């Protein structure tokens, strides 16, 4: 039996008195693209962020490479080989592309940062043109690319993405999904993708989970979920 790279067991997270996650269990194995779909407010972002320890889960375990990480400080969890592209991108708008990228590789050496910068600029040539421009002055698509590039600066083995397609033009969305697949193929990066755009996400995913009201209600291969009647009705518009 192979151990999963990311294994979440019986995770419960509260926001004050409100329970946002209810006994969620899932796993992501090395080299997989796994997606989590669900409607607005189902708890997708909460799940992703609970893995990072922000917010702290109330109970349950999160294992990364077999080691329990729940309860550790967020900055320590994020140094163990995973990166996140959070909801709303959250790039540092007052800082240049170069500065944003250097923050992504914060705990690595100068040489490694230079190497990673070169690597992400070949993935996103657009950022090369904008290298000394402030993040806040770029278009939404460019900002999303910067958020992904920044997350890649630490050479993560697991990349967590929260709605990377939100609010972007279809052509940019297509590019971003292409890059996600390319990352897995060329770098072997494992991907955990949270999406409202269920059709797109499920069609590139090996496996998927469906979250409803803070619970996992379905899990199957991406293709099977795409063909599933319930999923089609609820998330794919018929």
């Amino acid at each position, binding site marked *: 039996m192979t151990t999963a790279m990311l294994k979440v067991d019986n995770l419960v997270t509260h926001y004050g008195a409100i329970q946002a996650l209810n006994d969620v269990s899932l796993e992501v194995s090395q080299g997989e693209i796994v997606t989590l779909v669900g409607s607005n407010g189902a708890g997708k972002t909460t799940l992703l962020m609970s893995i*990072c320890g*922000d917010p702290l889960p109330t109970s349950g375990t999160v294992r990364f490479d077999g080691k329990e990480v729940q309860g550790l*400080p*967020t*900055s*320590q969890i*994020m*140094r163990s080989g995973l*990166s*996140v592209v*959070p909801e709303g991108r*959250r790039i*540092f*708008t*007052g*800082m240049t592309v170069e*500065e944003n990228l*250097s*923050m*992504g590789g*914060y*705990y690595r050496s100068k040489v490694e940062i230079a190497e990673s910068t070169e690597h992400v600029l070949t993935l996103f040539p657009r950022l090369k043109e904008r290298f000394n421009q402030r993040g806040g002055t770029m278009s939404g698509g460019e900002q999303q690319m910067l958020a992904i590039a*920044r997350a890649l600066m*630490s050479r993560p083995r697991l990349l967590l993405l929260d709605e990377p397609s939100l609010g972007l033009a279809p052509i940019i969305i297509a590019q971003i999904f292409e890059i996600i697949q390319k990352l897995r193929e060329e770098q072997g990066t494992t991907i955990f993708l949270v999406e409202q755009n269920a059709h797109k996400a499920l069609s590139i995913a090996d496996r998927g989970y469906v979250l409803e009201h803070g619970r996992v209600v379905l899990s199957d291969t991406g293709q099977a979920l795409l063909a599933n009647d319930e999923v089609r009705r609820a998330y794919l518009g018929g």
Partner: protein
Amino acid sequence: MEAPLYFLQQVINGLTIGSTYALIAIGYTMVYGIIGMINFAHGEIYMIATYVAFIVIAGLSMMGIDSTIFLMVAALIVAIIVASAHAFAVERVAYRPVRGSKRLIALISAIGMSIFLQNYMLLAQGSRDKAIGNILPGGWHFSGGDFTVVLSYMQVIIFAVTLISMLLLAAFISRSKLGRACRACSQDRGMANLLGINTDLVISMTFVIGAALAAVAGLLLGMYYGVVNPYIGFLAGLKAFTAAVLGGIGSIPGAVLGGLLLGVAEALTGGYLSTEYNDVVSFGLLILILLFRPWGILGKPEVEKI
């Protein structure tokens, strides 16, 4: 000839005091930028640094050392170390435990810390003024007609040291890893955490940097006035806070601009009206800016998040 020279003298005096306000104001503005609180104990850090500088200068002088440069450098180094250590400890003891709770709680904790530090120096050094002699006397005189403009060597040192400190800070903030992390934290601390940045360490360093600049101000202003007592931190702190708000709290260039403006405004008040009105003008300015432009001269209006 007399009137413009008199005016020039007031501006020189104003920029001298203003430079030191700016140095102290940076500590307020950086801490506000990163954790959104007003560190009301910051004035006390400045006061402690002034005492330390005095003690070092007096001690070394008693040992027979009379090189002004050596005295100043030694006093500066020790004052920076002691002030930074105090600021580091204050953050750990009084602010970190209440971080994340309501703003009012952090504010009360800061005021408590301010009172504590003032009394701690009062116990250690007594309430009476301590004075040191002028170790850098003299200056340049430019006379025209009846009036002579004096630019003392001490004033030149104040401008030069302030300028060097600002340039070092600017280089640190824009180039160094930690300086950039400070900026990242002040924009989105949660995100900085998600990138593996130890934000607690960044916050501690912000306090240390602010304290180091306050220590520079403590030495300079201490030498300029020649006296210290445990209460000087209160007024200096309020003035620097005013300067920070005037320039736009959270903005470093704003703090510098605010400090210089405030210093000049005070000197002109003192020169043309009466020095008794200095504080009236300073805090009058604070009230006006809070009423009509609360985000300051260089700040950006903040949208209150609901």
